[in-house]
């Protein structure tokens, strides 16, 4: 029998706990495959966040440290300074990275820490039950913006890639999505490239992945994919925001 598909060796056998239709699982797979294909799984160390991906330390088949909420880039800095040859990456959601952890992400980027950040943006706090995030769209209703996020007083979404692109020491910043197969293929290319940058000691790399939260968006998995395409991408345009090597 011919093997046509295999689970990546970059993932453990622990069953994922993510909700049906959530794209965290796909993103895990892309990261795991990238580490294996670049032959760095054995020297990878993941820093897990607080949020939906808190159990990432059980899923990635490599060494791991669980960080306090928002502090993953600081933890990764500590690890990387001790093991400069390790491939150190954080896997963070938008509450973790774009709210409580803004100081840590901005300054890790400012120092040009040679780490990779996988930033999963689903425009909401998933784990805690669907509260408003800094990335929540204007008008989007959540459990803490029941009337829809109001631009006045609650503000408009924070665009992390655009913000970090102003920082000199960043090496690679890209926003991708996994809502269609071609997008997924492009996302993997970006993730691999980000790790490649770290392998070549080019500095700070971050890939923002637009992700779904059918549970807290109140949509079916298929509707959620469509929502990414029609509602999220116009606010969070896909693309490469910084590439030290030029090109995409």
């Amino acid at each position, binding site marked *: 029998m011919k093997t046509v598909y295999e689970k990546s060796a970059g993932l453990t056998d622990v069953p994922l706990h993510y909700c049906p239709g959530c794209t965290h699982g796909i993103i895990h797979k892309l990261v795991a495959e990238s580490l294996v294909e670049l032959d760095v799984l054995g*020297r990878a160390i993941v820093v897990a966040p607080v949020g939906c991906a808190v159990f990432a330390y059980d899923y990635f088949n490599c*060494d791991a*440290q*669980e960080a*306090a909420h928002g502090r993953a880039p600081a933890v990764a*800095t*500590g*690890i990387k300074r001790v093991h400069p040859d390790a491939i150190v990456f954080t896997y963070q959601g938008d509450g973790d990275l774009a709210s409580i952890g803004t100081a840590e992400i*901005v300054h890790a980027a400012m120092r040009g820490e040679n780490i990779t950040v996988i930033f999963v943006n689903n425009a909401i706090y998933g784990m805690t039950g669907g509260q408003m995030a800094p990335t929540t769209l204007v008008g989007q209703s959540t459990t803490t913006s029941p009337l829809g996020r109001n631009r006045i007083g609650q503000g408009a979404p924070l665009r992390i890639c655009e913000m970090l692109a102003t920082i000199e020491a960043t090496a690679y910043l890209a926003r991708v999505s996994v809502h269609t197969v071609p997008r997924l293929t492009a996302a993997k290319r970006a993730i691999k490239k980000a790790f490649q940058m770290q392998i070549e000691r080019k500095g700070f790399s971050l890939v923002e992945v637009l992700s779904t939260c059918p549970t807290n968006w109140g949509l079916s998995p298929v509707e959620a994919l469509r929502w990414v395409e029609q509602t999220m991408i116009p606010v969070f345009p896909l693309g490469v925001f910084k590439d030290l090597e030029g090109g995409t």
Partner: protein
Amino acid sequence: MAKKLMKGNEAIAAAAINAGCRYFFGYPITPQNEIPEYMSRELPKAGGAYVQAESEVAAINMVYGAAGAGARVLTSSSSPGISLMQEGISYIAGAELPCVLVNIMRAGPGLGGVQPSQADYFQATKGGGHGDYHVLVLAPANLQEAADLTQLAFDLADRYRNPVMVLADGMIGQLMEPVELSPYLPAADLPPKDWATTGTAASGGRRRVINSLYLYPDQLEQHVRALYAKYAAMERSEVRYELHQCEDADVVIVAYGTTSRIARSAIEKCRSLGLRAGLLRPITLYPFPFAAFERVIDRPQGFLVVEMSMGQMLDDVKIAVAGRKPIAFYGRTGGIVPTPEEIVKQVQALLGGGP
């Protein structure tokens, strides 16, 4: 190595490097800035790294990462900065990582002032951050001891996989005294760091995970009980204190760090006046030397606790004395350092003589 005149903060920094510390993460705050300055100058020469963090919050989480990666790592700060680090210290204790913290205390609360204080005793010895845990706390009274205890702190941290704090104050940090640093070898029987994240290729394939999350209450309770078994071992093996002229003392002064030095001068003055005072000086504040009180409890008419605070260690002395003898308290706070004369007056008042 010959004795060298050093500032307290420098002596602590030099001792840390001497003990094999190669990583420092910190944020500037008075009165401890000579520690990061020394580390930024000397660590690169020693093959290590100094990172100036964006905040104390980030610094302590860098410590978490480096400690989890298996390194000997130090951070230092002063009271308001140590408050900011409490979240990370709780995680480090929960994840059982070894690291050394230095708190060069200044006066609080709030922004307070930059003069010496001992008002972080509760924070240091009773937990500080959230959850059931302890940090082992060492309180030096002179610069040689500050250097020696800093070196010891790294061994204790590795032995117990727990944060160890060197608790001093702005006086110790800024004072200059001769210090001798001898070649230092870590204790030979320290456990191997077979839990550190290095990448599975380097560790032989088994995944290593640094974590303090236990969602099942029975597992978390078991974890906390294991932490407390460790603290019980510290309480059995790591209690340190000094008794000075307690044999014939009618008053035993209890003081640590800077105030113990002043108490020592006061005791000399008392004795020249015919007042028999002695000193019980805790060196470990956690574990607190409760047993030391049993050695001195019979003789004195009472105890005098002296602190640069409104009375924090006082609570532990009350527990130790357990109502058997009267306890007086003399505290100065806000950055005011008590004089020997003030303490002599307290002793005179206790013994019923004098003005």
